[in-house]
């Protein structure tokens, strides 16, 4: 279902409004219930997500038992139950957030995973997998270099033989390879 420009603009404004409301509520929670901020953000974000989809679904054909019915039903129920969870937070009846662990390391791992994902398209699956595995093991403070690079190479060989050669899965070879060698 295509959305026209004015509908798109309205949707963008509506989404912005929802995000501002969520941000303001998060600011209030951070001030008054700091130990429950994470627990608040999950249902609040789900409400925003559901309301945006709810708004988008208004562009679907409005038929009896049409494509609009079920998404709006699920969306409404999410808003209701998330609202209930938020209420328990406001009334201090919810559990406090779990202790924060090594988020810096987690951010590095997610970042590496994203770099790996984008690199696959450019330098190809095999080289990017080799580099990703080696780098991640090193980042996770494993220091036996022989093991690091032999496992990385072993995985590349395994995926080449099993997935690429035997199962004919067209793993990305990368823009560089395709430009110069194909």
């Amino acid at each position, binding site marked *: *279902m*295509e959305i026209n420009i004015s509908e798109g603009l309205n949707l963008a404004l509506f989404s912005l409004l929802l995000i501002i409301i969520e941000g303001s509520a998060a600011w209030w929670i951070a001030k008054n219930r700091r130990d429950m901020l*994470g*627990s608040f953000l*999950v*249902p609040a974000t*789900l409400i925003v997500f*559901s309301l945006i*989809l709810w708004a*988008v*679904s208004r562009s*679907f*054909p409005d*038929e*009896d*038992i*049409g*494509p609009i019915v*079920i*998404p709006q039903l*699920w*969306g409404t*129920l*999410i808003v209701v*139950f*998330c609202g*209930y*969870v938020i209420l328990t937070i406001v009334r201090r009846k919810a*559990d406090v*957030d*779990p202790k924060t*662990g*090594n*988020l810096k*390391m*987690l951010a590095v*791992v*997610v970042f590496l*995973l994203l770099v790996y*994902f984008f690199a*696959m*398209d450019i330098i190809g*699956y095999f080289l990017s*997998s080799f580099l*990703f*595995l080696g780098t*991640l*093991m090193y980042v*996770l*403070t*494993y220091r036996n270099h022989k*093991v690091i690079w032999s*496992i990385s190479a072993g*995985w590349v060989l395994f*995926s080449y033989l099993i*997935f690429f050669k035997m*199962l004919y*899965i*067209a*793993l990305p070879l990368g823009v560089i390879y395709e430009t110069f060698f194909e």
Partner: protein
Amino acid sequence: MDLINNLLLGFSSLAGWQPILIIVAGVILGIIAGAMPGLSPSTAVALLVPFSYTMEPGMALILLTSIYIASNYGGSITAVLINTPGTPSAAVTTLDGYPLTQKGEAGKGLGTALVASTIGGAVGVLILILFAVPLAKIALQFSSADYFALALFGLATVASMGSGNIAKALIAILFGLLIKTIGIDPISGVSRFTFGMDELYDGFNLIPALIGLFAVSVVFAKVEEWKMGSKGLVEVSNKLPSFSEFWKIKMTILRSSVIGTIIGIFPGAGATIASFISYDVAKRSSKTPEQFGKGSLEGVAAAEGANSSSVGGALVPLLALGIPGSATDAVLLGAFMLHDLNPGPLLFRDSPEIVYGIFTSLILANIIMLILGLYGNRAFIKVVSVPAKIMYPMILAIAIIGSFAVNGSLFDVAACIGFGVIGWLFKRFGYPVAPVVLGIVLGKMIEENYRRAVMMHGYSSFFMDKVSLVMLSLAAISFIYPIIKQLRKKNK
């Protein structure tokens, strides 16, 4: 008498070393394919169809059905060891299988999965042999309202997964259901929430979502915990459950095998729904329901017994009526046709040696699976002895290639990473991830059958039909009862 004669005919077709070798090869390939995330049983069977072309029809079908039955067990290996379900139905196995590994009892988890799979597979085949034709006819009389009621009954199992907070479990399942509405509407053909992205026309694929929610999210959580020694993930024992432990769960295995077979018979229902429902029933009837989700052998047995027995159930409509009940059955149907065979009542009359050859080979495949599994488990368990700093990058690498392998699409890889982040956040703040999978699995079945039933017969169709009415009532009871129980507990 006819049945016995035909079974003897089937056994005679297995005489000689060649059929046995074919079954062994099929079981090994099935276990490997099942254990590999991204390779579903249907993909594994499809990949082998061309190789079976030059084989004699009976042997070709024996190879393919052996792969089918073993791949359902194979899915449990990675589910128990690294929380990565190799097949969608093994998602339920992770709920108790992985906690067992974390407690250092991976051997018990794998052993229970193996025995439950073997018994489940055998029960499914037995029911297939005895009642294939009449059961298939009953299943085909099911209306849209009945299917909707069956799916709703499946949804009610969410009450077993809330780990104390039903509201959060409901949010998780609703999130899965909402995610499933993305893509082309199954009835009107309207594209929903695709935002012009071609990749979203078919919605999110289940496998990348599953791998992200279960495997990637666990790696994220463990990295955040940052407890990385140079030793293995956990000290694990390859000790199998004792005979008395197996004896205690005998009823769970048998019950889940029957549930799995019955649900497997309904076209489109499948192993995943069977596992969820069986897990729910096992938890409700258990003397120790509080152990579920913490490493209960009953939980592993319920999931595995059901998903393996559903194979026999799914073969009922295929063999008896020529109607494929699952994706793998559709591939098998193609294989039958490739060999100039048409599944259906005539196949029983014209080629009983093929049909009963398949039946008897399935029994043998289960026995071979048990033997190979018992020896293989010792090797599989070594996986968790690998240091965490090596294991977690490997899990991510498997997750990436597994997601990509489904459709050969980088979009699926992105979806897997996205679901990984969602899974990590959900788990961190007490939202169970299994209901998200349940929502994604059941979403289409619920919507399609609900709308179809209302369009054809109005809202009354759900209450006029006896089967639908019974199942809706059961769904309501199984949903409301745990809530009342929880409220009572709170009031005390």
